[in-house]
């Protein structure tokens, strides 16, 4: 789809269907705005491409042959919350993989892993090592200190609230939308072929499977963060100055009434209005506006290289 927003009109592989489903899953309208989807897709793609570039530099510095999950996790090292989320992500993935294997009766040789502890198969164990790398980067052992994943909690509460009063047909569509991710295919053999073709069409970088797994996680997080940001913006837009009770008025994520005076409303058949391009742009503006920290607006970057910040990290 050649569009104003797409960087180059040549790429045939896109994740528009998946991203529109993901946005629906995170609480957008069942039919997300097509222009928004295209914009979000280009944002995610750009972010991941920057990330691969930077990981490639790091990889060269440490004389690696291919970009591994080590390089990608290295970029994430500052954000402990996201490291924790990746840590949990791997734990869940491992559990689910084991579960899937158990369900397949014909794959008898895989059955053994969970059953006879004394005769463990050495080849099966430890394909993913994200957790080991996370432990390595996390010298102060801060990741294990986090007991509560607030991002996850907020998203789950939102999903539960959205589904509260859905009919079965709508819920089925919602469930299908939530099942989408940046992995292609179904089951254990979910691969990252499409993701790699999307990010790295001419194979200029060598990416290992584990690196792609982390990239898929980051891409998913990016979409989620953008949608989260939109809901925060809508909450802000609703606030009236001088009203002391405005902060108590309902949830900011899914209550259609609380969104009624958001600026750009083009409501679909569901209560929640579809996320507009302007809202996504506002989210990005807030992400990239200079921090009002210790240096504030007078911050000078002495080494003159612009710091790249990632939405998901």
């Amino acid at each position, binding site marked *: 789809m050649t569009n104003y927003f797409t960087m180059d009109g040549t790429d045939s592989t896109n994740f528009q269907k998946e991203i529109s489903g993901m946005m629906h899953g995170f609480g957008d309208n069942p039919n997300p705005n097509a222009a928004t989807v295209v914009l979000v897709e280009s944002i995610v793609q750009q972010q991941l491409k920057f990330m691969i570039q930077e990981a490639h530099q790091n990889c060269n510095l440490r004389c690696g042959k291919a970009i591994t999950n080590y390089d990608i996790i290295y970029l994430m090292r500052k954000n402990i919350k996201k490291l924790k989320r990746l840590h949990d992500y791997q734990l869940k993935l491992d559990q689910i993989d084991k579960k899937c294997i158990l369900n397949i009766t014909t794959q*008898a040789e895989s*059955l053994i892993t969970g059953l006879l502890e004394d005769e463990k198969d050495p080849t099966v164990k430890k394909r993913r090592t994200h957790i080991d790398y996370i432990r390595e980067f996390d010298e102060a052992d801060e990741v294990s200190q986090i007991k509560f994943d607030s991002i996850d909690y907020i998203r*789950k509460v939102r999903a539960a609230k959205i*589904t509260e009063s859905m009919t079965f047909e709508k819920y089925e569509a919602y469930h299908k939308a939530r099942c989408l991710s940046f992995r292609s295919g179904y089951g254990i053999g979910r691969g990252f072929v499409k993701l790699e073709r999307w990010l790295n069409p001419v194979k200029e970088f060598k990416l290992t499977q584990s690196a792609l797994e982390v990239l898929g996680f980051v891409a998913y997080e990016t979409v989620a963060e953008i949608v989260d940001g939109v809901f925060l913006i809508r909450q802000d837009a609703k606030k009236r100055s001088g009203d002391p009770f405005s902060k108590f008025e309902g949830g900011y994520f899914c209550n259609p009434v609380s969104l009624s005076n958001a600026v750009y409303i083009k409501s679909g058949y569901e209560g929640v209005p579809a996320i507009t391009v302007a809202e996504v742009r506002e989210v990005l503006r807030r992400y990239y506006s200079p921090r009002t920290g210790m240096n504030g607006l007078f911050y000078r970057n002495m080494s003159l290289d612009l710091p790249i910040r990632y939405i998901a990290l």
Partner: protein
Amino acid sequence: MDISSNNLDKRSTPSVPTPDWTTNAQNEMEIPLVEAPAPSTPALSSNHDNNLSSKYIQDVTNESHTNRASVISSTTNPTQTPTQCGTHSSVITPAISTSQSLITGEVALTPTHSTFTPQSINPHSAMTAITPMVSGTDQARSSIKVQNCVSTIHLGCELKLLDIYCRTRFSEYNPARFHGVVMKIIDPRATALVFRSGKVLCTGLRNEHDSYIAARKFARIIQKLGYPARFLDFKIQNFIATADLRFPIRLEALQQAHGQFASYEPELFPGLVYRMVRPRVVLLIFVNGKIVFTGGKTRGEINEALDIIYPILRSYRIS
């Protein structure tokens, strides 16, 4: 087989002929009917297409039908199955035979005659039509189907895997991939993993009995190869069963309420993984109301898990 033996018992006491409502019995019952066509003998049969299709026989069968129906409605057994009819028919038999003794002529044989039906009202009107209603739990429980049954045995001797692989049919051994021999048999269709320590894991069976038989066959095969194999510690390790609740479930709400047991990550796996503590069973719950049970050691555990989870899931039903 047991039906015919039943009928043999009944034929040994010809003085009280019992009406047998099972259709299988009609061949057995036909012979005394033909031999004794006297109108006074209370030979009853459910056989409507009997060649003795006189009015008398038909009336009697009609009458016994109403009697039987009233008995059923009075006991109000909701789960009435055809196999249980036999017991009921034996209950009503003396009543019929006493009423038979009062019959004198052709006139008294109408089904609504007072001598025939001592009740003041027509039993048809007293009868309430009870459709066999089963509760949701029963329905869900009857939908449990064991898909796989994993058992282990210990042969009590060290095995040479390469030797076993070379001397048996339908076996695979690839030490680089998996350090055990994969053996298969056809009847019952089963797969076993044989390890060097003498442990055998037997899988692919639908029930415990088949699993036991398959395990014995595998042990026998290895014994025939010349190992001093014994059949020790047969144990069912895991049942994998499925059930269908027949209503959709709101997984998000369930996940919110049972956060410490449930994990639901739709982008990774479409089902909700529910780790039940007691009984120690893992349930995979899907949106369409289908459940997969894994990790149960007995059928009882799976039934128990379903009994526990049913009311919970019921409350998260999508109406």
